[in-house]
């Protein structure tokens, strides 16, 4: 079972934060096919968050084919989100780590590295 966090200081809509946390848990293997997501009541009892927000997040995940609600059981995880398999992701992560090390050696602070990464990711959207 996973728990959710809510960052109210980010501009990311709360439902999207939950979607991202589930996707992330699936990517790294914290959640696996067949696992059950906490019910809305369980989530709400743990963190003060709007129940509709949790419903909306689960609906979004259902639309992506990652989870499925089953009557009487709850919301069941179906599989991993689209994207390369973990092995390939590990390779990509290793390559990025090399680059990050180069940037640090060149004298960049971590804040600046994150800002640069964001700028590049957003530049891609322009194309």
């Amino acid at each position: 079972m996973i728990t959710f966090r809510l960052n109210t200081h980010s501009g990311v809509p709360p439902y999207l934060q939950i979607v991202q946390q589930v996707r992330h848990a699936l990517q790294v293997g914290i959640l696996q096919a067949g696992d059950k997501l906490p019910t809305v009541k369980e989530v709400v009892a743990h963190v003060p968050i709007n129940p509709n927000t949790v419903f909306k997040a689960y609906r979004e995940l259902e639309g992506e084919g990652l989870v499925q609600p089953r009557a009487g059981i709850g919301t069941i995880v179906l599989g991993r989100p689209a994207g390369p398999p973990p092995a390939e992701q590990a390779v990509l992560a290793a390559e990025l780590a090399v680059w990050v090390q180069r940037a640090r050696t060149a004298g960049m602070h971590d804040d600046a590295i994150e800002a640069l990464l964001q700028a590049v990711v957003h530049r891609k959207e322009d194309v």
Partner: protein
Amino acid sequence: MNKVQNAVQTDQLGKQYGSFWALKDCSITVPEGSISALVGPNGAGKTTLLKLLVGLNKPSAGSSMVLGKTPEQGVDFLSDVGYLAQEVPLYRQFSAQAHIAMGARLNSRWDAAYATKRLNDLRIPLDRSVAKLSGGQRAQVVLALALAKRPRLLLLDEPVAALDPLARVEFLSSLAQAVAEAEGSLTVLMSSHLLADLERVSDHVIILAEAKTQLCDSIDHVLQTHRLLVGPRTEERNDAYTVVQATHTGRQSTLMVRLNQPHFKDSHWQIHEPSIEEIVLAYMGQGQLEREMLVKGGTR
């Protein structure tokens, strides 16, 4: 798509005291099943609006529909509406149990077992006089009493203002659980000037400032349509957005904008995604700006 019903709908609602408008041109909707936050600075008209919605005030202008009816102080209307005024309405020498028993005599519909279970779950002593409970526990007693009525709409006026941070989180969690249990049949409209707490549990926000509605929308949509632009100083206008608040220094301009189109890119600006708190503050600041301009205009 399901048709979303509105638990509350007002049309240019206004309340005038003498020559002073405590609330003006207030047009809002509160979707059924939502937890809506009513935010605004002190004196923005939040309490006035809530009192109009529960029928404790008569409007001077406009109209409102609450659960499909015009608000009035009658049993037919009030049996579906719970209202918690700012002052915690408890008899200090009575225990929670005595309050529950009293509620049963005063209300046609009353779920005493539900109130008792809620308080037991929270480990709040039922037999102690409420004067001896902590502020957070008293707030939970009041909430349990309001919910025992099994209302379809709960209007809360500053329910967490007097509570410490932990008690606030517990209260809001308790409220969110009640809404989850009701599965869409309970709507909450809650006023506060404490933004950080409300944005956690609300899915809809209404901003009142200067006695007027500044914004009434779902929180997701508000976040999607607002951006903070930072760049070299400019007074230029752009059709792509509407400026909510602008701050200029000698060289730099910072704009809080509402986007008029879904995707906005402009190499002129650094574009940030603001938090709901930043957005709300910008709208409140806007009201203040207008007032300052009015004052200046008046003295000329």
